[in-house]
């Protein structure tokens, strides 16, 4: 890592030590870089200087009541621990977190990191984002004060909903040390329907028809054949000669998935390939984990949010750019784009195009130096940035928590 100088690491094991560490940093006005497992250091803007506060000792599930759909864990509990425990009770995190590994046991990162970066997987289109599942938290603010918000119940409007603010704030407002999340039942089974289409516009219309039906897809993606060939699974790689594959995923109870799959099959003139449960999950993992995107040294990966219905046209335009490749998840609402890293990764042109379609582009995977000099997140209008600064300052007046992690200078 750059700019850490002497690279001091402070490891804390409980909230008392956490509070002491923040108090000390506040007293000396020294910035802190907050990490759990450190897996998210490769994303977002790198923190500007500072000692590293390692939370990995804050580990463990402290309460889990499956029939109440609620779990409380210390913030740096590995995502793998949580997902495996949920799986024992046939439950999941419905927002479908990106695992960064090939199994639940190999999932990377911590629950605090997943929530702080508000990163959701393919089911986000229908099940909501990570932020929708954070019910309450305990934290230390940049003022070196322990505080809490929310609770363990799902219906709660007592005071401001600070959980929403914490999710996606990348540790810049306060350091969560305990989180309470809503869990959901694991779908009994799933099936995916794969449709060969000419281009993203056509794929999008197949997806639109499925979502306009009463057959309740849970996720949908558009994969260019040139990327589908990278799949390790044959039905996908078989689509090599078509332009674009539309993937529609169904999940739920066995009887329901069967009935809906039959109904969708009969609904269009196109004949889809229908997968079984295991294959459906395997393909979904490849889509969620961006495994269909080859990684190369001189390329960056953009994560683009846009209105789902614009996703077809926008994807067609983005991948028509020189040397750009990409695919869409969230029914079109999320585009993963790989572009050459030269000429500032084409940031200005890509962001202008994305803005035209009502979207935002995040520089998701890029060398550290580039994530420091180019804005990682879509630049905000001035009045919004001013409000962002005031909010930051209301939690962290000295600017010691993860300074610059989202926006340079904040």
């Amino acid at each position, binding site marked *: 890592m750059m700019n850490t100088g002497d690279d001091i690491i402070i490891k804390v094991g409980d*909230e008392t030590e956490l*509070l002491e560490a923040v*108090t000390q940093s506040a*007293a000396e006005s020294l910035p802190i870089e907050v990490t759990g497992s450190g897996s998210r250091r490769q994303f977002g803007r790198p923190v500007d200087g500072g000692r590293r506060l390692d939370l990995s000792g804050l580990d463990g599930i402290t309460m889990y*009541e499956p*029939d*109440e*759909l609620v779990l409380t864990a210390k913030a740096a509990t590995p995502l793998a621990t949580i997902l495996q425990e949920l799986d024992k009770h046939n439950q999941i995190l419905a927002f479908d977190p990106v695992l960064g590994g090939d199994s639940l046991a190999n999932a990377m990162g911590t629950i605090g990191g997943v929530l702080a970066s*508000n990163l959701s997987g393919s089911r*986000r289109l229908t099940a*909501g*984002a990570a*932020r*929708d599942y954070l019910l309450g938290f305990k934290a230390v603010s940049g003022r070196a*004060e*322990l*505080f*809490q*918000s929310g609770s363990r*119940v*799902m*219906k*709660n*409007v*007592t*005071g*401001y*909903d*600070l*959980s*929403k*603010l914490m*999710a*996606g704030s990348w540790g810049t*407002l306060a350091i969560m040390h305990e989180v309470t999340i809503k869990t*959901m*039942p694991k779908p009994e089974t799933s099936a995916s329907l794969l449709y060969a289409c000419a281009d993203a516009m056509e794929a999008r219309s197949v997806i*639109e028809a499925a*979502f*306009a*039906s009463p057959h*309740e897809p849970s996720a949908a993606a558009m994969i260019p054949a040139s990327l589908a060939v990278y799949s390790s699974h044959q039905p996908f790689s078989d689509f090599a000669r078509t332009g674009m594959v539309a993937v529609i995923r169904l999940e739920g109870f066995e009887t*329901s998935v069967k009935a*809906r799959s039959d*109904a969708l099959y009969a609904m269009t003139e196109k004949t889809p390939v229908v997968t079984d449960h295991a294959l459906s999950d395997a393909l979904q993992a490849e889509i969620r984990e961006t495994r269909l995107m080859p990684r190369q040294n001189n390329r960056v990966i953009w994560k683009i*949010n*846009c*209105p*789902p*219905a614009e996703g077809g046209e926008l994807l067609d335009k983005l991948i028509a750019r020189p040397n750009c490749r990409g695919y869409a998840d969230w029914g079109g609402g999320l585009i993963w784009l790989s572009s050459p890293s030269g000429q500032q990764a084409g940031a200005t042109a890509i962001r202008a195009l994305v803005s035209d379609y*009502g*979207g935002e582009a995040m520089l998701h995977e890029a060398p550290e130096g580039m994530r420091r000099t180019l804005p990682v997140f879509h630049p905000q209008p001035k*009045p*919004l940035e001013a*409000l962002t600064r*005031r909010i930051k*300052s*209301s939690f962290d*007046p*000295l600017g010691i928590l993860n300074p610059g992690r989202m926006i340079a200078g904040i």
Partner: protein
Amino acid sequence: MEMPIPNAEVIERREAIAADLLSILGPEGVIDDKNAMSPFESDGLNAYRQSPLVVALPATTEEVSRVLKYCQENSLKIVPRGSGTSLSGGALPLADGVLLGLSRMNRILEIDYENRAVVTQPGVTNLAITNAVEGKGFYYAPDPSSQIACSIGGNVAENSGGVHCLKYGLTTNNLLGLEMVTMDGEILRLGGKRLDNHGYDLIGIMTGSEGLLGIVTEVTVRILQKPAIRKALLIGFDSVTRASQSVGDIIAKGIIPAGMEMMDRPAIQAAEDFVNAGYPRDADALMIVELDGPEAEVLSLCGRVEEIVRGNGATSIRISETEEERVLFWAGRKSAFPAIGRISPDYLCMDGTIPRRQLSEILTRMERMSNEFGLRVANVFHAGDGNLHPLILFDANNEGEFERAEAFGAAILKACVELGGVLTGEHGVGVEKRDLMGEMFTEVDLKQQQRLKCAFDPDHLLNPGKVFPTLHRCAELGRLHVHKGQMPHPDLPRF
């Protein structure tokens, strides 16, 4: 209920202020006649009344911005109001405050079926959104019981829920975008039709902020495809414990019903007397379980639910055969409030949430409190998410009974917090639960929330006197004393 002391100087300037507002909004946008202002004196919590300084009714975002700027420059307080259906006094006027009504901003601006989005002005009612899209088979999921009257802007302010929250979430889970105006008149656009947004989740923090952070001038909501079918099960039990056990068992089996409601004996009887929905009068607890979705799924789940409740000793089970029957099953539950209104001159509706497994415990405690306070209580609740609505029966004509009912209500909410729950599940804090906030939050927690308010409204001009029991000046809240290696507040208990 103590409210901030009105500023006599402002009240003296009333006519001049009304004239200034008139120049901004024109004659249709200002009401300053005392009699004409009387409908604005209270909201759904009508035990409290106060005539506002003047009523301002802007018709556009620009007008909202100009009014706020004017008020900021002249240090005038603002109380925002949608349809005035708040049950917690969120729109209770201030004698020295401008009541800002959004009712003239009542147009749906855009329906975008492909993006499942409706863009609307804040004064449109919740139900009007569903009405506008149901022809094409869509609906807007949050359905507070006041949905025929409550506005979508008010829903955002209160983070309104309804009977389908377990499966479909509250308002906060169904929003895509907002346009808002901050107290200094700045117009901000948040989100849009995309699913996720960069930067701090300001839509999330605006939702449920009870009009203390800004004025919402446009809302983009997510609409959903209507489920293929809906079926309801009407299930009687001879004990609340068995009913409560069944709720947990259904969820533990991986079933998330669209709605799961429960009523206790007094509520069942009052409702049955009122609408004759065929409720079992001899049951101690009644559950309504609604399942929605693809036909094959709903039919199979009806069977699974029936099996679970039979195993828990249900004394009666009916499954709706037709849509009319399903609506009839709900009719009793939906008219529970007026039904109670028939058997008691007055009632207070409370709104705590508890972890579901504490249901028997809270009902036992309520029964004991009912004897102590000498007042009857009937219970309807959203069993799936643990949200209770105890209805405390009283007669305001009897000296001291309103105060006793309020004390009973406060005792119930304190018990909810003690059992791991919260003061309010969907009605908001407002003025009603303001002074109970200390039961749930420490002084540090509350000050942090107020610091956030300072980022939006440093002079405390937006809806002061609501939500927070003590108003701290922002300069005082912002102070930070850190000495080397010392706690900023050594006098406070740390854990």
